[in-house]
């Protein structure tokens, strides 16, 4: 070792052209050129500003290679790739095929990698790092499936229990990858054109049921920062209790980091997401409700892993309740408990708590997302790639076509692929997107819409839905050019509270189809009270709702199953002024709109058709794509 200090000049020269690991090179070079975008346009508003608000569409739930599970699914796409996908560029699926966004670029998009072990697996797979020397790294990236599974499940168990694997819990790597994701969000934010947020997923899962058996109730939520983000992300390795996450968010808010969290997949929460007790089993109180609503004004109601609006057993009189129901707990075949897992029931329990105890912890609005783990969401039934990379990257793996070597569904071999296809992936959905009503496409305007809950959820199509409630609305307004302005001035939009005056309120429900997708069949209003629920058809493509049954006449729309071509007509827009025929001025009621498209082929049917085999018999051949708005809450006068 002679005079290495004399190498200073050449060392620095080398450092300048040091070539880092392939997957990260792009990030590193781009980071060098980061300029934080102006979060507020200097001269007032951006192009497209509309005081009556525009509908913007986006996906708030996207994973990339930095998520511990995505990396194992062979996902190598970065946050930069994810944002490029959202803006219309084509990127690669881990199985090698191209993914291009259906329906054109989105208005907003958010990478929400799991905060637990963020970026650790890529580092474990990079030779030369200390993390790659760990025995767990050797196993995880070996060729022995048993070792890989054991190593990976060990990580899952740690995320679940909140007990860190000490040698893997490299906080400097985690925090630096978090800042890289924050930088990527800032870099791709173009006010007026494309909005991003610094965000991540808090991956809490209940471990045991009350009877001590294995649980697996999903309590995941995504955390979004309105502007600047703190230098680390609170994860289950800090605490698995979501209430501790809210404490942290409150603390950060007091330091100037405004945020919200959006829970998802309540459908597989094993009854935990909207349970009527705290995480530790204490009774709910007003302080809990305040804190929950301050931090979680919205809930993700539909995504790839199923729809959480309601369940047929909870809503036996709702003919459309049996829609994309998925109820297997994460990674196992056990069935999630139904009570406490669905949004409509939570609205009902919220009203009950309000009436009995004076607080409502479930006064939330609705959004939707894909939860894609391959950086790009699959929103179209016709062009679907599910969401977990190599594991569900082919029709065989997804169970939409018979196992290779067979052509019928009668005698499928019993193996893991067939079983996982049957139990899990064939029941997943090409869903969903969030719509927001905001003045312009900026972080401030969209985040403010989240706070107002002026949001709606769709199962993929970009249908637009307006919903207003007020006391002086008239039928004339429906044909007035400034309908929207009048509706805002004389009432409240979706997400608002409508305080009683003794009169019966009127509602304006107005839906417009996605111009590039299916036509509309009907608009419904779902009413929830503390002791019941009802679904009213309020606008029909054909005819008017029957005043007794509150159902539209059949509009005759169907699908030609030999080609998946829709047959029959549908509406391009539906609009109505509606009054609740069962209104009681003294009873609290929650109203939200559900819009149904005409039927179309489900993704599994498209794949069967292309494969020349019969569609899978135990899932529906067609679905009715739909949208759900945030509610308007009617609150009786004191």
């Amino acid at each position: 070792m002679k005079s290495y200090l004399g190498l200073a000049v050449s060392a620095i020269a080398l450092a300048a052209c040091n070539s880092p690991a392939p997957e990260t090179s792009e990030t590193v070079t781009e980071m060098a050129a980061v300029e934080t975008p102006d979060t507020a346009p200097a001269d007032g508003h951006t192009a497209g500003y509309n005081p009556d608000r525009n509908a913007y569409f986006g996906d708030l739930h996207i994973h990339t290679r930095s998520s511990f599970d995505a990396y194992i699914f062979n996902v190598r796409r970065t946050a930069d790739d994810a944002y490029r996908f959202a803006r219309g560029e084509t990127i690669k699926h881990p199985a090698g095929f191209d993914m291009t966004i259906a329906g054109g670029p989105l208005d907003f998009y958010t990478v929400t990698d799991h905060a637990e072990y963020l970026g650790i697996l890529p580092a474990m797979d990079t030779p030369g790092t200390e993390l790659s020397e760990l025995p767990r790294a050797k196993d995880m990236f070996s060729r022995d499936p048993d070792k890989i599974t054991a190593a990976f499940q060990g990580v899952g168990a740690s995320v679940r229990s909140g007990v860190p694997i000490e040698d893997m819990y490299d906080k400097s790597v985690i925090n630096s990858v978090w800042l890289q994701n924050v930088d990527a969000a800032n870099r791709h934010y173009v006010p007026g054109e494309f909005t991003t947020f610094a965000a991540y997923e808090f991956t809490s899962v209940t471990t045991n049921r009350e009877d001590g058996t294995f649980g697996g109730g999903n309590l995941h939520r995504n955390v979004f920062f309105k502007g600047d983000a703190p230098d680390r992300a609170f994860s289950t390795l800090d605490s698995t209790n979501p209430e501790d996450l809210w404490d942290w968010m409150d603390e950060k808010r007091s330091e100037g980091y405004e945020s919200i969290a959006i829970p998802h997949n309540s459908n597989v929460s094993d009854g935990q997401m909207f349970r009527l007790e705290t995480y530790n089993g204490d009774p709910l109180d007003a302080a809990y409700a305040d804190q929950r609503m301050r931090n979680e004004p919205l809930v993700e109601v539909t995504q790839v892993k199923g729809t959480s609006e309601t369940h047929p057993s909870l809503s036996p009189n709702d003919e459309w309740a049996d829609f994309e129901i998925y109820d297997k707990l994460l990674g196992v075949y056990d069935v999630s408990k139904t009570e406490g897992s669905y949004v409509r029931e939570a609205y009902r329990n919220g009203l009950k708590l309000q009436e009995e105890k004076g607080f409502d912890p479930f006064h939330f609005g609705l959004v939707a997302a894909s939860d894609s783990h391959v950086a790009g969401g699959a929103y179209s039934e016709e062009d679907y790639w599910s969401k977990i990379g190599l594991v569900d990257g082919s029709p065989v793996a997804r169970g939409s076509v018979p196992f290779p070597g067979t052509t019928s569904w009668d005698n499928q071999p019993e193996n893991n692929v067939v079983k996982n296809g049957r139990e899990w992936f064939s029941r997943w959905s090409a869903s969903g997107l969030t719509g927001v009503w905001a003045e312009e496409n900026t972080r401030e305007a969209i985040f403010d819409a989240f706070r107002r809950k002026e949001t709606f959820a769709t199962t993929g199509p970009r249908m637009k839905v307006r919903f207003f409630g007020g006391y002086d609305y008239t039928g004339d307004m429906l044909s007035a050019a400034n309908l929207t302005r009048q509706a805002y001035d004389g009432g409240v939009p979706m997400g608002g509270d409508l305080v009683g005056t003794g009169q019966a309120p009127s509602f304006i429900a107005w839906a417009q189809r996605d111009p590039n997708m299916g036509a509309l069949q009907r608009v419904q209003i779902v009413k929830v009270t503390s002791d019941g629920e009802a679904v009213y058809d309020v606008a029909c493509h054909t005819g008017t709702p029957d005043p007794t049954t509150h159902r539209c006449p059949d509009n005759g729309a169907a699908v030609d199953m030999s080609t998946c071509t829709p047959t029959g007509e549908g509406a391009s827009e539906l609009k109505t002024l509606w009054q609740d025929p069962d209104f009681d001025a003294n009873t609290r009621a929650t109203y939200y709109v559900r819009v149904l498209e005409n039927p179309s082929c489900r993704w599994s049917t498209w794949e069967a058709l292309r494969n020349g085999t019969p569609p899978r018999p135990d899932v529906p051949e067609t679905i009715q794509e739909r949208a759900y708005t945030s509610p308007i809450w009617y609150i009786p006068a004191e």
Partner: protein
Amino acid sequence: MKYLREPLIQFVVAAALVFGLHTAWQAWQDKSDSTIFVSEPELERLAALYASEAGALPGPEDMTTMVSDYVRDEALAREARRLGLDQNDTIITRRLAQKMSFMVSDLREDPVPSEDTLREWYQAHADRFTEPARLTFSQIFFSPSVRGDAAEKDAETLLAELNNNPTMETAALGDPFMLQRQYGDVPVRELARQFGVEFAAAMAGLPASDDWQGPVRSALGLHLVHITHKTPAALRPFEEVRAEVKRDWVEQKRREANEQAIADIIARYNVEIEGVE
């Protein structure tokens, strides 16, 4: 020395010779294989790596640590190779291939394009340097859901009135519409997203005019349109996009050179795949 002629003795001597030679060869080989030589370029590389991560040059202690890590890795790697651990391992094969392909792309200097080359590239890939067409227009919506079959006739009637009476107030005409009544400088692609592909294509084909035009059909209904300004799709001037053109060209050449280099390497091998005719 007659016993040297004894076959047994001859065998023993020959065996001893062979054994001796083998031992000598083995000793020589072991020596070369058992030396881990840390060269000056290797030290430079380690120092540079450290500097790039730490932002400062390594001190003597850092250097000692790095060198002992290096020695440790090298010894273990050799031992692994001696045990044949590198054989038949997809991950290692893939890594080596990846490393090689990065080396290949690093080996070449970026070529320097002439002005003519860049202009040719710019012409040949004009679509990449073209600003999309943009429109500024007002529209009046006629809803088939509201008017049924009368929508088209109503639109045509109003069209005639509007063009006879250019000062007519239009803000309250037609049916309420969820999208905006006016759009400023909006790209055609955005029209496809908001109104559907059919409407976007029709609008791209209409001229700017003082007159109202239409009705234009969209997925949502019928629209009378007043296109006040139309910026056609325009190729941005070469001078303005020169840097982009160059970046594009260099990127392409780099990709081609890389592919070529890899193809050259592959060409040195005879590829036989068992079971494939």
